[in-house]
């Protein structure tokens, strides 16, 4: 049995890095960067270890478990009360890996931040701690604790280090976007909070332990009432239509590394929450509401893709494409059959890596050019071949080219959907076709064709950006050509979700 302290370390490392940064004088910018990158690298290493040390076919639903009694035996909290109970299953394992990858790439890419970089990295590390915490917690109190922790630093990260967007007819200031994102996500935590109360009271076993709560029996009608609370609450974070509008605005305004982490990993927290709290806790409710969710998910796919087609701004296009791709995750989950849910989790990983790469590339371009309009560029391929290659790979993964991660994931989602809802499956494929339209159009417009003289002095991206991007691409390729490490872990745990199969 593996030691749960590795999981604790994924939370402790970023928290201690943040604490250490508090004591570094703000003027020592390079020390700050080194601490951040070292912490990022350590997390990358830890997450690789956790992913590969996870034993397939072990028989236990959760591995790397550890318990630490936090508050016990007093008052209404029962014997086990609030326990720091950590553990992962095959669904959380790839998510931990994803977080490690994106965190490391994010710290590399944030090397060039000059303005108050210490404060930036403190908040960034809090965000990372929150994300890891959600994926590894098996206690509702701590699950929610880390969930809120992941929202907490966003306002300042966007408000201080973000960028405003101006369009011909309107503008989106960074303060507006920061506030919108924060208020949406905090508002979304209201139904989750209420759902947690309800489940705790209904189960009446005096513990927040998720494993015990999963085993408890809930009245079918109770499940039908509470399940939507979790799905809406978590769904907001997953970009569920019609609660998705914070996502493009927020991700566009955020600084590059934060967009990477937020779109790449935080949106997955939402989908992960639907599995952990919704499907695992309340299977009858899930069964009842899934037709609704798959409809909304399909709208996500189509609506997001059409909106992305209409964008002229690189980053907004990527933002809407995230909304569209998260739709596949929701569709996959809603099929409630093994292959569809499997595909959804694969898509969570795939989209995480891919969208992180896209945001990183957009950021790399914007830092030099200070514009994000696709139409003003042209022929960048000749000036920045490495950059364009990376961007194109991300784009091709996004439209589902075989050999890259997106294909594996979306293929599973489509097969799953065709088994239960053939008509919606067809619409999903239509969404993939629209994706091809906007991705190829962007490639043609900005990267190929005759070079625009205005951009004659653009330089190739920096070494650190290249390294960060290359790591992300490596995992896209790994999943594309050799998905079995992922599929083995995920499939086993997916079958243990009640109601799937």
């Amino acid at each position, binding site marked *: 049995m593996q030691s749960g302290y590795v999981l604790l370390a994924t939370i402790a490392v970023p928290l201690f890095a943040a604490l250490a940064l508090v004591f570094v004088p703000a003027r020592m910018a390079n020390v700050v960067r080194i601490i951040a990158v070292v912490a990022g690298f350590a997390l990358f290493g830890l997450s690789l270890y956790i992913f590969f040390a996870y034993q397939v076919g072990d028989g236990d639903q959760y591995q790397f478990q550890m318990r630490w009694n936090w508050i016990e035996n*007093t*008052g209404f909290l029962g014997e086990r009360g609030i326990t720091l109970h950590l553990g992962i299953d095959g669904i959380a394992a790839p998510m931990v890996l994803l977080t490690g990858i994106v965190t490391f790439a994010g710290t590399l890419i944030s090397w060039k931040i000059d303005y108050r970089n210490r404060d930036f990295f403190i908040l960034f590390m809090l965000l990372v701690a929150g994300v890891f915490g959600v994926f590894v917690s098996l206690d509702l109190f701590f699950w929610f*604790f880390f969930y809120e922790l992941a929202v*907490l630093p966003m306002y*300042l990260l966007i408000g201080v280090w973000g960028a405003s967007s101006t369009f011909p007819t309107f503008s989106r200031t960074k303060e507006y976007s920061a*506030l919108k994102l924060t*208020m949406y996500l905090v508002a979304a935590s209201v139904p989750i909070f*209420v759902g947690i109360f309800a489940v*705790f009271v209904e189960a009446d076993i005096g513990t927040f332990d998720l494993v015990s709560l999963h085993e408890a029996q809930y009245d079918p009608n109770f499940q039908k009432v509470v399940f939507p609370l979790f799905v809406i609450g978590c769904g907001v974070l997953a970009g569920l239509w019609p609660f998705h509008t914070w996502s493009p605005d927020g991700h566009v305004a955020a600084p590059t590394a934060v967009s990477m982490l937020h779109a790449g990993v935080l949106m997955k927290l939402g989908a992960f929450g639907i599995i952990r709290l919704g499907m695992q806790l309340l299977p009858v409710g899930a069964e009842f509401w899934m037709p609704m969710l798959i409809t909304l998910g399909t709208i996500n796919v189509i609506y997001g893709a059409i909106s992305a087609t209409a964008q002229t701004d690189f980053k907004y296009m990527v933002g809407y494409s995230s909304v569209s791709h998260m739709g596949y995750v929701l569709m996959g989950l809603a099929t409630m059959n093994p292959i569809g849910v499997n595909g959804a989790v694969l898509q969570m990983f795939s989209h995480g890596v891919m969208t992180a790469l896209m945001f990183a590339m957009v950021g790399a371009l914007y830092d030099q050019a200070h514009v994000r309009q696709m139409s003003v560029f042209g022929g960048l391929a000749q000036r920045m071949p490495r950059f364009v290659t990376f961007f194109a790979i991300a784009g091709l993964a996004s439209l589902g080219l075989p050999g890259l991660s997106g294909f594996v994931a979306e293929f599973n989602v489509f097969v799953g959907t065709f088994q239960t809802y053939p008509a919606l499956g067809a619409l999903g494929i239509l969404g993939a076709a629209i994706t091809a339209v906007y991705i190829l159009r962007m490639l043609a417009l900005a990267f190929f064709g005759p070079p625009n003289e205005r951009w004659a002095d653009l330089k190739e991206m920096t070494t650190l950006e290249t390294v960060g991007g290359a790591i992300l691409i490596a995992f896209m390729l790994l999943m594309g050509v050799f998905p079995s490490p992922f599929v083995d872990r995920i499939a086993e745990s997916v079958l243990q979700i009640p109601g799937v199969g």
Partner: protein
Amino acid sequence: MPSELNLDYSLLAPEFCLGGLAALVIALDLFVPGFRKGWLPYVTAAGLLAIMGMSLGWTDVDSDFAGLLYIDKYTLFFRVFFTATAAAVALLSAQLVKERLRHPGEYYALLVLSTIGAIYMAAARELLTAYISLELLSFSLYVLVSYAKFDAKSNEGGMKYMLLGAFASALFLYGLSLIYGGAGSTFYDDIAAAYSNGTDAYDLGLLMGLALVLAGLGFKVAAVPFHMWTPDAYEGAPLPITGYLSATSKAAGFALLLRLFSGAFMPVLDDWQWMIASLAAITMVLGNLVALQQHNIKRLLAYSSIGQVGYMLMALAALSADTAGALLFHMAGYVITNMAAFTCVIAWSNLTGKEEIRDYRGMAVRAPLLAAVFTAALFSLSGMPLFAGFFTKFILFQAVAQEGFLWLSVIAVIMSMVSLYYYLMVIKELYISEPEEPDLVRVPALLNGLAVALVAGVFYVGIYPRHLYEAAQEATKLLF
């Protein structure tokens, strides 16, 4: 009951010492020639902390003081709580009192005296003792609020506070007389016994009495609709006293309410539960919604503290041993957080003399440490994790939901979200807006130290508050 009059006065030693401390402070100020008045706050704080340490060894539940006072763990909890708060307020006052107010001796003496009142509000188990303690606290506060006597706002605030306070006291007393009329005793135990022996009939006197008691105490803790004095008193009072009002005065009100309702009125639960539940609901909603429109930091904190009172009332509505423990736990977290916020506001006001929210712009550049502490305190007040607010609110709301008041918890969660909005508006000024002048300001080491100590407390309660939670549970276990 008053069986023997051979009372063990040694139990009251901490309060005797507090009285002595108050006299000492005045004497130092008046009679010791050449005494540096700047030392007074430190003498006061040191005395208070020494008494806090001393009170830790002073509990004995066997001697009940003829049923008037109980020196049990509950009293102990509040002794420590109130003396610590008063010590922090004394230190926070140092600069302001020296520079802007006259007669420092009386100021600190009143602060110490009010603490005695607050402690006995928690200790009293008899209606008139409770009332007299309440008045001791209130009279000290009336003077302290209007202490800046050449400032029109301070006078206005003090006047409103005193007039409405007197009115509330009258209501409270009238309520007590009705209760006494019905139950035939002023001792909590006797009242409970009288009520449990049969109040099947619809008892108008009891209902009136409960309503009047609630109105009177609702005024003291600033529950809507008895909150009208709060923003004015908060705005007019010297800043440290504003902090004190939001901490001790509220906590003492709740200490009294909790002891009274759990001790005397549990048998007639059905008659008052709906009253407190509705008070809690409107207090939460109104306090938080009105806070949205404030542009003065003191008024913002005033309304936000009204919202907080709503959360605490909720625990009273769902009264049980669990919620009482959760209430004490939440109150401790809230007071530490609020003192941290006030430390920043006081420091900024000392340095710049300004109190509008927009005057805080660029604080992160000019006083980074204070801005960070202030941000932590505001996030804590809105209930974000790592900070006290998340943990205490989670426990409190959960306990309330457990007692069957899920609807109140839902309102509370929604209002916490609303509160985040106005706290973010302040945080925006701190971090995002450009500073008026770019240069760093020098914050006195005392205030920096206090801010760091308080924020450490905020993190303690927010991350691993095991001991505090156990202390709160221990303190309330014997109330029922």
